[in-house]
């Protein structure tokens, strides 16, 4: 899909969520769904298979999220999948998150950790990243067991890597 079309979808989703008054919650749910979508081949195949009817793909989304996400989030994802743009879902959502962050003068910061962070840790990590980068950040935490331990944070083009995975890779290279 072209950048203009992705931006169009992102802007539409952003306006709907803001109109519903659930932008922060919807943005966070969409971000986590996008990361799950990227890491699951089965989910990606199910939502992008053109042979599966649109209402069936939308049914998969509703059964997956159900009551674990707001109705607005489910409806927005279902709308994108039903229109046959499931393949571009991560880009659309990332664009929406960036748009939402910029609307609040924030920079999107993605932190990957092997275990979930507490709210206190999220707050202190956001503050630490703001201190390190000089920008207020909209922190998005992704639980990624592949990092083994520690955190890798990405703010714009800046990557701060403190993961065990990277240290193991460095050790392997030295060996």
């Amino acid at each position, binding site marked *: 899909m072209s950048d203009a079309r992705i931006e169009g979808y992102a802007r539409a989703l952003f306006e709907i969520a803001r109109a519903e008054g659930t932008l922060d919650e919807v943005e966070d749910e969409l971000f986590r769904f996008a990361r799950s979508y990227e890491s699951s081949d089965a989910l990606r195949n199910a939502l992008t298979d053109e042979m599966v009817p649109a209402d069936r793909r939308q049914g998969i989304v509703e059964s997956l999220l159900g009551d674990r996400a707001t109705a607005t989030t489910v409806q927005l994802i279902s709308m994108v999948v039903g229109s046959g743009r499931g393949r571009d879902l991560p880009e659309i959502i990332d664009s929406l998150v960036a748009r939402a962050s910029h609307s609040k003068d924030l920079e999107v910061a993605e932190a990957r*950790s*092997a*275990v979930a*962070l507490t709210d206190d*840790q999220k707050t*202190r*990590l956001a*503050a*630490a*990243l703001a*201190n*390190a980068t*000089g920008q207020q950040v909209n922190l998005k935490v992704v639980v990624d067991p592949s990092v*083994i*331990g*520690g*955190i890798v*944070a990405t703010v714009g083009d800046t990557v*701060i890597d*403190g993961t*065990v995975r990277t240290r*193991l*890779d460095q*050790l*392997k290279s030295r*060996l």
Partner: protein
Amino acid sequence: MNIYGVIAAGNIDPSESVHPLWPPAAELIYGGIASLIIFSLLWKFAGPAAKKGMADRTARIQADLDAADTALTSARTEAADIRRAAGDIEAERARLLADADAQAADIIADGRARIDAEVADLEARAAADAASMGDRLGDELRAEIAGLSAEVTQRLLAETLDESAQQQMIEDFIQKVGSSS
């Protein structure tokens, strides 16, 4: 009829004064004079021609002798040339054989040198290949050991990284990032 015929016929009378063998004096004188005249004429007119003929014959014989001598000399020269040529041919044959031997010796020497060089090159390549293969196997072995070590380390870490260790690393990361600006 001559005197012998007369005698044989028996018509001569031995009592006659005429000698049967000795002619009369007048006949001798006339005959002698006539003979002198004839010999003088012959000497005068036929002598030069005879002398010239003899001289010519002598000259012709001499010319034949000279020609024979020249032919003999030429034949001897040719024989000498042939003998010399035969000697030259022998020398040329010897020289050609010597050249062929020398070329054969050079070719054999070159061939041996080339074979020696090729053998040395093959040995060097074989040694280099063996060394390279050894290095490659060493590298592969080291890489394999490194991969296995990393894998084992990762498993050990995953097993030993309990919740408190995870939280400690997260706290360390937050503190480290917060202290940098």
